[in-house]
């Protein structure tokens, strides 16, 4: 029995020392890195979406629909409506889509979306407000042979109040811009913003 115990201890000794030798070898691989990882700037962030409608007859008559999401698509967005449409007037819509988390702000509309116009399509929708729209002849060509929807003209009808929605579809399967507002199937929504309480005054 004695010899067995001795043998046992010897072997245990070998075993433990071998383990710690291995431990030493592998622990070298852990260089303590004091450098912190750099922050990642979300490149595809869209923080600010602004729709500026300007009366073709009166440049001081503007309606601004602004959506601000400081954390981009990952966070809460707040919508704000400034100004009222004038019944019977015709407006040109100027779109601005930016990433304001970068300094200076990144122009997502011109640098990304219009460059890849054939993969994108803007759709608009209204509810209980008498707005009609059309895509301009010089509007950029978008996905599936439709106009992209960055240059549009809007006509304010009778006084009313309602919601205005803008959506940006990425890689739609099919698009249809025949009614101006536009509709599509497939793809994924990169933006879907609804502004409520938009007014047309007489």
């Amino acid at each position, binding site marked *: 029995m004695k010899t067995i115990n001795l043998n046992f201890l010897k072997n245990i000794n070998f075993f433990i020392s071998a383990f710690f030798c291995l431990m030493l070898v592998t622990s070298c691989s852990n260089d303590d890195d004091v450098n912190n990882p750099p*922050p*990642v700037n979300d490149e595809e962030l869209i923080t600010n979406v602004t729709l500026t409608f300007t009366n073709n007859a009166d440049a001081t008559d503007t309606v601004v629909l602004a959506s601000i999401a400081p954390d981009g*698509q990952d966070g809460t967005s707040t919508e704000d409506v400034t100004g009222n449409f004038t019944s019977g007037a015709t407006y040109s819509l100027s779109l601005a889509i930016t990433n304001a988390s970068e*300094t200076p702000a990144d122009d997502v509309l011109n640098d990304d979306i219009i460059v*890849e116009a054939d993969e994108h399509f803007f759709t608009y929708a209204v509810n209980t407000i008498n707005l009609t729209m059309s895509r301009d002849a010089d509007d950029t060509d978008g996905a599936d042979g439709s106009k992209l929807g960055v240059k549009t003209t809007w006509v304010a009808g009778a006084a009313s109040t309602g919601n205005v929605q803008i959506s940006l579809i990425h890689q739609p399967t099919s698009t249809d811009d025949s009614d101006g507002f536009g509709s599509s199937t497939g793809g994924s929504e990169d933006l879907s913003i*609804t502004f409520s309480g938009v007014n047309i005054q007489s």
Partner: protein
Amino acid sequence: MKYYVLIIMSCFINMTYSQNCKSKFFGEVHDFHDGTPMIAASIYIENLDKYTSTDIDGNFSFDNLCDGKITVVVSHLSCETKRFDIQISGDTFYEVNLEHHIEELNEVKVKGASNSKLTKTSQETIIKAKTIERYSASSLGDALKEVAGVSSINTGNTIVKPMINGLHSSRILILNNNVRQQDQEWGVEHAPNIDINSAGQISVIKGSGTLAYGGDAIGGVVVINPNRVISNDTLYGRTIIGGQTNGRGYNISSTLNKNYSSGWFAQVQGSYRKNGDFKAPDYNLTNTGLDSKGLTTRFGKKKFKSGFEVYYSYLNNEIGVLGTSHIGSTFDLVRAINSGQPILIEDFSYDINTPKQNVTHHLAKVNYYKRFQNFGKVNLQYDYQHNQRLEFDVRIGDRKNIPAIDLTLQTHTILADVNLDSNLNQKVNFGLMGRFQDNFANPDTGVRRLIPDYEKYDFGIYSTAEWKLNDDLIVDAGIRYDFNKIDAKKFYRKSRWEERGYNIDFQNIIIASVIGSQVFNGVIDPNAQEYLTNPVFDYHNISGSVGAKYSINDNNQILFNYSLASRPPNASELFSDGLHHSAARFELGNIRFDKEIANRVSGSYTYNNSKFSFLTEVFYNRIKDYIYLKPLDFILTNRGPFPIWAYEQTNAELFGIDISATYNFTDTWQWKNKTAFIKGYDLKADLPLIDIPSFNTMNQITYNHEAWHNFSASLKSEWVFEQNEYPDFNFEIENQLTEEIISVDISSPPPAYHLLHFYSEATFALSKKTNLNIALGVNNLLNTSYRNYLNRLRFFADDLGRNITLQLQLKY
């Protein structure tokens, strides 16, 4: 194979040149393990045709031998026969040590030999090489479903994660050639990176009975071992070529083995698999292609007393994810669910576009073992794993070529294990494990990190013991302690930090503030957009098990096992913080989590006779602080409303019964059944658990005729019931334009389905050592349309339609 026999000494006394025929050859025969003398071992000198046997002290002797070479054969009941040459030169003494732990010699057994199970009292099932070969063109997760109670949670048809008794991902431990697979297994859409063609045998162990591998196997353990090493001078190989109609897939896998009787061995195995878009019965599943490349190579020396192995495996999988499952908003999800079929259906193509995954896994290991007489076996192992996961998303412009997720996980592990088996009736095993892990999230993705950079340290110590109390009763027990430390560097948006209330409890772990693109170290700036934090968490885990196996008689056997398992939260459960695209929801981790603790009781009953075999396994698993995802809130973003799901801890219970039965009507006709029933509940919320497999039963009729080139044909019926118990996590969103309320049904399970599968094969001997196996199969024979509750893409498309497969396997 020859077994190593220790020759302690040989005495050369009379070194004369004259022929001496008065020499004596004598010696002792002992058991290798405990040194006890072996009585009545027969000693045969083959070239002289002389016999003797050992006496009560294990001694033997032959008198009046001539000097020169003799061939000795030593044999003993229940031992392997040993044959060797020795030189007689005067009186010659030999000590022979025989080995009778046959089951540990890892010898390839002749046909019909018993399985070498890894555990004695756990619910373990072995999948043999013959079955594995059928799955050459599939994934590990598909092959594991051969076991009753094992299902899978899928993302499409090529991302298949094994699920054991309702649990998956981090709750299942996968061992590949004794290396614990570290491949970011926390994600449901992260399938194990293992080439099934490299597996020689797979053991599925339900529950955590096997503490040597880890204490956190709340669900179970999958042990994959390569082919056994044969110590003969031999060269052999296997080549499998297959084709599948669905997805127009093809695969090739080849293995070559070279072995020497000296114990040296080398093996190389390579496989390639490709398929294009799969097809559901009614439409193409666009962008579901796969391109998989695997290489495994190993060499070493294997002797009974000592040996080593160097092993390396490489696997690269490029996997397309169903195109239509990329959605941008909750409205897209609603449209997908309501349309009932994919919106994006294109013509067949082998192209793999975004969204897709590209995962590369390298595994290298070296191990050494040595047996000490009267003691046992000591095994030392070092392994290194490098896992890189790239996920490409639908992005604007050139960014689609930049992965949205780029994570590299490196793992170093050392293991030391001692098996004390000198006493056959009492085996003791103990060991130590040390592990270092480094996760790197590449910032060049241009997308905020889903999982942060972290370093993780693990240390484990365990001991298990097994007692053979008598011929009918085996008892085993084990205990293990694990220490885990995770040291992360994570950026939190200030809004998230405050919304989670971390500013109250964890403000002290902030190490820097980010304003614009500038980082201010050591500052907590209230105007910061982001905080860099350094969470460091320690976990102490105790696990244990006790079990018994009792053979009532030759036909009846029962098993009982109790196990305690403890699992620390994984990186995803702690730190997740982002949008999950195909689920259209935010998923949030929680750094307040403590470990999960599971108490599992199980029992099995086996009945066997020559015609009928029956196995029933029952279990009850109660998990304290079970971590799962649950709907928490809503957020209105510039893509419309999004649900927020957060990981939460609750107390859960799972219980169920698994049945396997086989009946041989005649020598040629066989019936087989496999049935699983499981229930799972969240005890705090009093709700069923999500993603629990429904009742399913499989019946198979096989016709087998050995005389016709081992021809067999089988028809399998697979019946999966509708899951009628599920948590109702449906939600409502408002279409803000129309102010209409839309209900989003993400909870209702799909209806029950029944599938028929056909399989037939025959083997032709081409020469003495070469044979060709031809197998023809048809999956989903009737081209039935169905959706599986456990497929994460079930909202978007039907599962696979009919698939005809042809496989040629050449063994040489």
